[in-house]
């Protein structure tokens, strides 16, 4: 019994430590990307966002619903396989990238990249 518990804990520890470095790098680069874009937010017409931390369609739908709920968002097109979302906006409203990021984190996931046009 003890061996089974120790074995399970050991496997978890190895897997967690192996991924820790790569994950940290990606997350920080996303933070910088969003901060630099916020100042130009009033001219944004389209955003392509890639979310991180998910593999299932239910998780993807949580992000989709969270993004669709934003007042300034007109339409969201999702590519579940690539965790990618293309957002278009209502013509008169001002786009808030911080709110877009918050919508993704509220759904329980991270923002891998965010590109605007």
């Amino acid at each position: 019994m003890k061996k089974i518990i120790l074995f399970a804990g050991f496997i978890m520890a190895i897997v967690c430590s192996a991924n820790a470095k790569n994950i940290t790098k990606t997350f920080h680069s996303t933070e910088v990307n969003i901060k630099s874009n916020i100042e130009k937010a009033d001219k944004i017409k389209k955003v392509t966002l890639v979310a991180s931390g998910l593999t299932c369609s239910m998780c993807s739908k949580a992000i989709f619903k969270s993004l669709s709920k934003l007042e300034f968002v007109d339409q969201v097109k999702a590519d579940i396989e690539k965790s990618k979302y293309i957002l278009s906006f209502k013509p008169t409203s001002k786009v808030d990238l911080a709110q877009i990021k918050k919508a993704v984190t509220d759904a329980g996931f991270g923002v891998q990249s965010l590109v605007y046009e």
Partner: protein
Amino acid sequence: MLDLVCKVWYMNRRCLSIGFCGLIIAIFGFLPTVAQELYVFSDPASTKPARSIGIKHSFQKMGGNTNRNNQYTQMQFGLSKKVSLYLGTNYGGNDAYVQYRFFTKDAMYAHTRLAFYAKSIQTNRQAIHTSAVLLDGEESVNGVGFIATQLKHKWASSLSLGYVQKEKWSQHYGRDAFQYSFSNGLLVYPKRYSSYGQTNVNLYLELLGQKLLSGRGQYLDAAPAIQMIFNSQAKLNLGYRFALLEKTNRMTNNSLYISLDYLFFNALSMLKQRKKL
């Protein structure tokens, strides 16, 4: 119909459960699959989406000496991105479960998450004298614990460690126990996602155990399960739990489990908006 499924299952349960475990292990090892952590018998460290409300109804048919059936209904609330609250009733009592996700590291198709949880089960049922701490609503129990979940594209594992204590106990029976689980899950269908309307089929294999702290005894159960997800919002779960190791006495050491969950995204914010209007 449900009775017929139960009868067929119980007549062949040992062969079917061992065969099913073998199938899951084979799929884990050899087929290109995508990991899933929407476990049937335990919770991952990931919390519910913020402002969502989930409803879950489950039916448990206990085997062994007891021929009792349990029905259970639970409301699940995503209070914030880090906190989930579950309130449930099994018609003989109520329970509450709160989970706080305190650590998150996300990457493409991968994440590492850690969470604390606390739960309380309160029941009006007559006391049942068993060594094991019963967690299906047969007795009043409080507990706390820790969950670690690792998802990496083709592999999702979750480990939980906890402490549970009965509110009423006698010296002849156990008072508290160390509770643990080790869960693994994978997606077998579809091979490629194309829309939210696709039905998903997931397989899970979980190990659920308890080691008594005051008094000797322990058990370890294997719990294979199959899950279907409809419209990326509704989950139908079918699982069977049976003992691999049994060194304690409890209500039953095997049970058939069926549950249906439905998740309403953004439901809490919609309720707030309606109140304002």
